[in-house]
């Protein structure tokens, strides 16, 4: 870990230099709808600085909602030409993601690369640098502190920026982080406490307690009541920084077409439906349970990490306002 500081006035310079260096810079932008989204931007003026959380996570940079796996065209001799050109995936910097989101990248990396590495993800991840910004504000939906994270954790980030008055405290965790640092703008610094500049996020539950009780939560009678409001859309899964389910779709004709990897969501009724018509997750209760158990139990068994990072997006985005931590608390009630 290398520690530096940069003045607030130099932040736009640093940012614009990143853009000038030829990298695609993806940063939070406030849209007319009042929501903040990650978008490719050209200048720091476009970047929103006053937001608690973006509506969607930045996972689409490494795991796009629609990814072309390959395309094909029938040639004149009747043979097919296949194309799978990943060479133009650019060096990308994600700017301004929250510490919860950058931790989510650790889970994504485990999921896609641990066994049978996914080449598409691997390439995108290698060409992505994460510059996170600590949270100075939080809202009622935030609960990172309950899942072992905090508004200033460095996990997953290449660089973490924390606003401290008129300067930013810079924690550089990786070589990739070092490589994008513009040395002229940064000065060396000693380790400081960030605490007073970070948002206070109330702990909604203790992971230690949950870890035990979640083992038997599958049979809880509360699931039905807790998932009563669930309408079966994909908003929670699509906004989630750690949801990785996808569906392979072929689009095209006998002449030409492409194979696409599209996001999918366990809340959809068709998600687990077999060709026979049988559906092992035949109701919304079972689907909601799958989502929550996956986050808090199955991913711990498979990767040793709770795959919920407490960003609170699913709570803010849910049309029925289902609250993941209330649900978890209620199904693990003693």
């Amino acid at each position: 870990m290398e520690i530096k500081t940069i003045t607030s006035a130099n932040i736009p310079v640093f940012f614009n230099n990143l853009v000038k260096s030829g990298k695609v810079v993806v940063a939070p932008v406030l849209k007319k709808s009042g929501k903040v989204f990650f978008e490719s931007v050209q200048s720091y003026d476009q970047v929103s600085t006053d937001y608690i959380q973006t509506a969607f996570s930045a996972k689409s940079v490494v795991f796009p909602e629609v990814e072309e796996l390959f395309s094909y065209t029938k040639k004149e001799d009747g043979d097919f030409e296949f194309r799978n050109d990943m060479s133009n995936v650019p060096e990308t910097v994600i700017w301004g993601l929250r510490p919860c989101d950058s931790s989510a990248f650790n889970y994504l990396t485990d999921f896609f690369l641990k066994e049978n590495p996914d080449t598409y993800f691997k390439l995108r991840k290698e060409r992505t640098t994460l510059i996170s910004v600590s949270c100075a504000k939080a809202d009622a939906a935030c609960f990172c502190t309950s899942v072992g994270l905090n508004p200033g954790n460095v996990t997953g980030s290449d660089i973490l920026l924390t606003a401290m008055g008129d300067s930013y405290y810079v924690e550089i965790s990786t070589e990739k982080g070092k490589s994008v640092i513009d040395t002229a703008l940064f000065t060396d610094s000693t380790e400081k406490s960030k605490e007073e500049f970070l948002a206070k996020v109330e702990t909604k539950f203790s992971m230690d307690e949950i870890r035990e009780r979640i083992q038997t939560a599958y049979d809880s009678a509360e699931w039905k009541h807790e998932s009563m409001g669930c309408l079966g859309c994909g908003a929670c899964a699509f906004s989630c920084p750690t949801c990785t389910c996808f569906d392979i779709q072929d689009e095209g004709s006998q002449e030409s077409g492409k194979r696409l990897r599209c996001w999918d969501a366990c809340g959809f009724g068709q998600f687990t439906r077999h060709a026979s018509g049988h559906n092992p997750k035949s109701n919304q209760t079972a689907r909601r349970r799958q989502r929550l158990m996956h986050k808090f139990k199955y991913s711990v068994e498979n990767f040793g990490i709770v795959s919920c990072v407490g960003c609170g997006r699913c709570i803010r985005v849910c049309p029925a306002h289902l609250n993941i931590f209330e649900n978890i608390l209620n199904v693990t009630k003693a």
Partner: protein
Amino acid sequence: MKLLQNKVAELFENGTINLMIGFKEALTKQPVPCFIEKASEIEQLIYTKDCKNNLSVYLHKPEVKQAGKIGILANIATLRALVQLTSENQFWDIEKTVLTVNDKEEVIVFSDMEEVEAYVQANFPEFSEEDLKLLDYLESLSREDRWKYWTEQFSACIKCYACRAVCPMCYCPQCTVECNQPQWIKTSAQTTGNLEWHIMRAMHLAGRCINCGECGRICPVGIPVHLLTVKMNQDLFKEFGTKSGFALKGDYALNSFKPDDKEGFIK
């Protein structure tokens, strides 16, 4: 609030209902749907002007239907939806008790759907001014600019189908987007398919959409999808004089016709 809670407690006690769909206050302070199965939970029940969710959508949900005798706390949009859905014969398998809170904060328990119909007709909601303003603005644009506006909006759509999920009129067990032989609408969330999806959704709601605006309100990416159906509702009234969610009996606009319907574009 006490009045409402007492009324609901009464309904539980005399066995009229065994599930109440209403509103409670979330941690975020906004009113959110709640499901009361026990009399002890009645205290959380609230009703304010900010109770916007159209709860009638839950009456299609198997887990809710299982309760058999269901109470539903309805705002005016929900009441309209209930009228429309009754006209579409959707509630043959449940017993429902409809409650509302009127402007004078009185709790009304409707004894049958005819009473709901009369209440809806007496309190029929206008189009929202905000929607009309945005529509006027869009209509003032050139065709090319409108195309630009909407394709930009739809390019952000991620096909989470939340608009479909919250819609009380979208109750088909299998939606057209889920058919793949033929594949009418591409599954991938790309602009052409997204555009087709939203056009299709609006068309399938023609004459049935009760204008609650939930689809636009809850869209995670903030696309004003409800404008399509608002425009459609306006046109249907202008062209054919029909209003959806207005009467228990009668055909809906695209299910009926008049031999002298007017148009100016068929050669």
